[in-house]
């Protein structure tokens, strides 16, 4: 069963006379427990795709179903309700509230679902230990490093056990050590908790941690790679090759 099913999605900006088509009839299916990366050059529409899939933005045409529920037809309020129960987010700029401590930031999604305090405590302890942020739980975001911030952000995305976690360039602002650290943790959480992750990235290293990579170009799917039994290293080589073919300007023949 597909946890995410998007069919023929179109997205355009501007008005009738000056239309800019960003997504042109994309089909995407994600199975439960998958770790999918979406790659593409700047302007290929990958962030727009993530925004519409995660209901932050609306499609112009097409259907998107998450766990069988059509999110395109939902009203603003229902969407918000859906987001807070079924989706988790990790952003490039961390998006932590700087007046809250690490722990308060992580527990934020639980406060809506009226989880008992004891359960919340237990969930936090587990997750924080796994992500290595337990020691800094009482610190404010401006007192910790970028990597720690992003792991906090990841913890916030996982804590309420959402159906899908959307990550937008999660390693974009991190140095390579913190980046691989974070990706290792994401991969572990994906395997251990069977959490579904959809990640947008332009970094082949980041993409090589996932189980499948979808390449988009000019608003359409160009190709996809499946990791299968390959090692991360060879998978990385494949991604690099594909990106080489994909990248750059169209040849002026």
């Amino acid at each position, binding site marked *: 069963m597909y946890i995410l099913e998007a069919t023929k999605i179109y997205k355009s900006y501007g008005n009738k006379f000056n239309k800019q088509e960003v997504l042109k009839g994309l089909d995407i299916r994600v199975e439960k427990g998958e770790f999918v990366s979406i790659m593409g050059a700047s302007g290929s529409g990958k962030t727009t795709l993530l925004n519409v899939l995660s209901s*932050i933005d609306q499609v112009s045409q097409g259907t998107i179903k998450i766990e069988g529920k059509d999110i395109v037809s939902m009203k*603003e*309020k229902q969407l*918000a*309700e*859906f*987001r*807070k*129960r079924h*989706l988790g*987010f990790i*952003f490039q700029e961390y*998006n*932590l*509230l*700087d*007046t*809250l*401590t690490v*722990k*308060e930031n*992580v*527990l*934020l*999604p*639980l*406060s*809506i679902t009226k989880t008992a*305090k004891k359960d*919340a*405590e237990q969930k*936090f302890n587990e997750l924080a230990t796994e992500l290595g942020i337990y020691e800094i*739980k*009482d*610190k*404010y*975001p*401006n*007192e910790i490093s970028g990597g720690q911030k992003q792991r906090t952000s990841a913890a*916030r995305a996982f804590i309420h056990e959402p159906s899908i976690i959307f990550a937008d360039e999660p390693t974009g602002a991190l140095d390579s050590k913190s980046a691989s650290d974070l990706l290792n943790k994401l991969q572990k959480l994906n395997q251990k908790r069977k959490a579904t992750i959809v990640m947008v990235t332009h970094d082949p290293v980041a993409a090589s941690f996932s189980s499948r990579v979808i390449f988009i170009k000019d608003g359409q799917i160009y190709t996809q790679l499946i990791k299968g039994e390959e090692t991360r290293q060879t998978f990385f080589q494949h991604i690099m090759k594909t990106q080489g073919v994909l990248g750059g300007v169209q040849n002026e023949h």
Partner: protein
Amino acid sequence: MSINQLIFRNLKKNLKNYYLYVFALMFTVALYFAFVTLQYDPSMDATNGSIKGAAAIRTASVLLIVIVTVFLLYANNIFIKRRSKEIGLLQLIGMTKGKIFRILTAENFIIYFSSLFIGVFIGFSSSKLFIMILFKITGVNAIATLTFSPNALIQTVIVFSAIYLCIMLLNYVFIKKQNILSLFKVASTTEVKKVSLLEMIIGILGIFFIIIGYYISSKLFGGDFTTMNELFLAMIFILGSVIIGTYLFYKGSVSFIFYLIRKKKDGYLNIHEVLSLSSIMFRMKSNALLLTIITTVSALAIGLLSLSYISYYSSEKSAENYVAADFALTNAEDAKHFKEALHAHHIPYSEKMIDVIHANINMEKILDTKLKELKVDPASMPLPIISDDDVEKINLSPDETLFAGYNDMMQKFMPLKSSGQIELKGRHEVIPQKYLGLQKEYYISYFFTSGGLPVAIVDATIFDRLQKDMDMKPSVHIGIDIQDEAKIQEADEIFQKMTFSGNHDSRLAMSSNQKRSMGLSMFIVGFLGLTFLITSGCILYFKQMDESEDEKLNYTILRKLGFTQGDLLKGVQAKQAFNFGIPLIIGLFHSYFAVQSGWFLFGTELWTPMILVMLLYTALYSIFGFLSILYYKKVIKAAL
């Protein structure tokens, strides 16, 4: 785009953002102009009545200028900081600082002076309303006329032009001082860090200072301070400790208390707490000075307004205490003339005569002088004495004395015990008496009681004995009560036209006199209070506009996480309840304790006038809280 177009577009955009500024500017101009118009209005002579009144109005108009100037400079300061990015951008594309300054000046000139003239117009049209209110509360029967005073216009234009120049000067300094880089970075930053031990100490100290100030204020006239010097020192101490306490409260206590609440939650905050507690905890600190000033001046305004309203409100009651009948006289001849005049006008009346003698009374056993500097000798206090025959419903045995009519203020300084032994001292003999206690009623007028002393009621035999011993003719209190209340006014007119040789007073004249003088001061304090209320409300609103911009990013995050606009709005409402509520409640508390400590010097009724004033203030103040919530609503809506 030419420079003129640029100016014009900026204007359009700014008007939408700063409508409240324009409104406040117009309003303050209107208030000032109306006030100055009153000052120059010939019909005001009736209310002023004295040089004192005119001086009060002039002082008030100076205070008005101070409030308005501080407000406008502060508001401008907020706005120029908000526009710093724009200024930086203009510099980046190669405009000189001088040119940018000229653009700003032109923009401000248009907004400022159009508001000024609209304000003058509003002020002119409302000045009649103001003068009508003034006549009404001072009880002057005059027709309010609407006269345009060129003097008032000139004064208003001069004052506000001067303020405009100050604003421009500040803008000039701001632009000159900044370089492009810093202009892009001016956006305010809040320091977020753990509550330190020092802050906790500051927090506890703040609450401690406020409480100790309140405590001493409640003891102020309780008898612990026995000399004028000590009283004065105590007042200074209260003022200092409350103001410092308020400052420390904003600096530390708020974040300390909120920190304790958060700690108790142990990381599990709901959305409302996220938006209110955690944001205020860090932000209130940086506005500590501003909030202290706003709180203190609000407290002052509420306190003064309450006090003047108390004395206005109780003017009838205190006139009753001072004058024991509708008309009180001390000369039989005078009374005869007056009665004849009443007859002639067919006004029915009743008359009451009470003989009064003065004798020294030894009150050592029942009196507790607190204030040494009053220089009274408790062993022989000169008090008026009347016989129980002249007082209905009171019958005393020859060894008993009852006191009546002791006012609250004297009671505070010279409290009497509820019973004990006293001695009446005649010329030759001393009559021991048992003191029975104190009655609230006033039987004779203030001519006899030196304004506040009680009157001693003794048995008729004792009264005669004492009178014989003193060997002097008793003075007499003649009280004339008009039976038909509707005719008191007419009787008063007759009374005022007559000439008397002895002491005489009319209760009506006394109460309307007090109403007139207290009404004027109430009007002036109310005027200043209103101006301050509006300007400080606006400043808090502008601060909130600033904050909402800073927090917009947070709203974006929260909405992405799936919180609805409704969730966020509820949180913001809680936040504004704190942001506007904390200064308001502290201001109300300050003024409550200030009024509580000395209200009896001003009148006889505390609660009704004070609560009315406080409710009114709260209602007007809340408007700004609501406006800021509306602004936040827009920001939240635009956040995703």
